[in-house]
């Protein structure tokens, strides 16, 4: 069913801001394939409030989906906020009366999320050297958050992830020797299991709001939250696909491994070895390669018709190039 988001926001304005409240400057932001993000302002007697609507635009089945429901996402943001994590303030979780489908509203956080800007814009030159350490610090309260009541999440571990990605890869019918070798290589080097913790699950440059003055402002996009190895969140932000043209700076294209690890330990996180992060980083490249294949398939099967999808399919080769170099270096 097609939802008129602008119409829905107008109704929501009264519910959030009271009689006389209206919506201004509603605009869909680009990026996000199954999820829509809208920026809008609430105006009224109480002044102006800048807000973000996050809503699902594709059908969702919580049983089979890898991602969590937006209701769960909002609950996790609230729980980690209460534990001291840098996250947005959740303003409203939508229900049937709002007519917006599955959605929630949060306060807009000022700053920049575009990875390319974070790694190359001169506005970030002064703060950039501090960001890797801050990212390590930012993960600690997230990893320490207990699941809120009524929320259950899937638990991931390296062996199960490899099984799942390989199953997906086989189902695509693609034959890519580099991916085959990466599966074999990683299977032989799975680190010792650790006690699972709450993971953001998509902790990378692009999903973090950075302020040019102060650095990490908020960790966004919680749809892939799950339980697992804390090194997974660290490996993902080190995966080269999220370094935006600066492979020489392994953490998000802005910093070094040592700073990420030191920040995590200094904030009270249980120290993590670099080799463990590198394992998850390499698994991250493999994961992204398989995800690119599935995005192509969602177009080939007719589920998605955007030109974005087949072009993401051509990003498999970036992960192959990265994986070849990592295989040469060895874990």
């Amino acid at each position: 069913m097609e939802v008129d988001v602008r119409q829905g926001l107008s109704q929501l304005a009264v519910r959030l801001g009271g009689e006389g409240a209206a919506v201004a400057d509603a605009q869909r932001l680009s990026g996000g394939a199954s999820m829509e993000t809208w920026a809008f302002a609430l105006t009224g007697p109480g002044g102006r409030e800048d807000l973000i609507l996050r809503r699902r635009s594709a059908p969702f089945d919580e049983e089979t989906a890898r991602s969590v429901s937006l209701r769960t996402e909002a609950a996790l943001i609230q729980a980690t906020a209460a534990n001291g994590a840098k996250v947005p303030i959740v303003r409203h979780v939508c229900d049937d009366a709002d007519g917006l489908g599955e959605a929630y509203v949060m306060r807009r956080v000022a700053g920049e999320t575009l990875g390319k800007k974070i790694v190359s814009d001169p506005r970030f030159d002064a703060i950039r050297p501090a960001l890797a350490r801050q990212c390590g610090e930012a993960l600690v309260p997230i990893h320490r958050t207990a699941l809120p009541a009524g929320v259950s999440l899937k638990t991931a571990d390296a062996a199960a992830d490899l099984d799942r990605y390989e199953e997906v890869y086989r189902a695509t019918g693609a034959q890519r020797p580099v991916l085959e070798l990466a599966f074999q290589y990683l299977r032989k080097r799975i680190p010792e299991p650790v006690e699972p913790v709450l993971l953001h699950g998509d902790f990378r440059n692009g999903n973090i709001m950075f302020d040019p003055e102060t650095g990490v402002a908020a960790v966004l996009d919680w749809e892939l939250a799950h339980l697992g190895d804390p090194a997974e969140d660290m490996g993902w932000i080190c995966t080269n696909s999220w370094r935006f043209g600066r492979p020489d700076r392994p953490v998000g294209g802005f910093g070094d491994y040592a700073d990420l690890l030191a920040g995590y330990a200094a904030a009270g996180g249980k120290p993590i070895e670099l080799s463990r992060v590198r394992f998850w980083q390499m698994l991250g490249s493999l994961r992204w390669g398989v995800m690119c294949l599935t995005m192509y398939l969602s177009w080939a099967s007719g589920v998605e018709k955007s030109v974005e999808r087949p072009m993401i399919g051509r990003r498999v080769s970036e992960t192959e190039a990265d994986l070849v170099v990592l295989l040469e270096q060895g874990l």
Partner: protein
Amino acid sequence: MITHPKTEELAESVALWIEQIRPSLDPRNAFLARVAANAMATIRRELTDGPAAEARATTAMAGVLGHDGDFAALNAELCDRIRAGELTVETPGLLAALRVMAMDQLAIDQPSYKHEV
């Protein structure tokens, strides 16, 4: 093949046209138009550089596998033997062959991508 224009020139002309109209589009469509222009550029590179890349890949795979064959057959055999554990990172020449294939494909798909160092 007809050369006036060549197929890759048709692709290039479409990419240029997309770039011309892009400023007049709303943000979402401007983003998709850039993706579409990139798709045309990939098509152009595959037309011009693809045959040589496939020939290099075929030679590289034949070297590792020890016999000739066409690209699809060699690629399938390479995948099967890696999966079976017969070929590993220790196998002489395997990583070198995979590097040639991966870097050539990257040059077609995303020449501006800076790979892991």
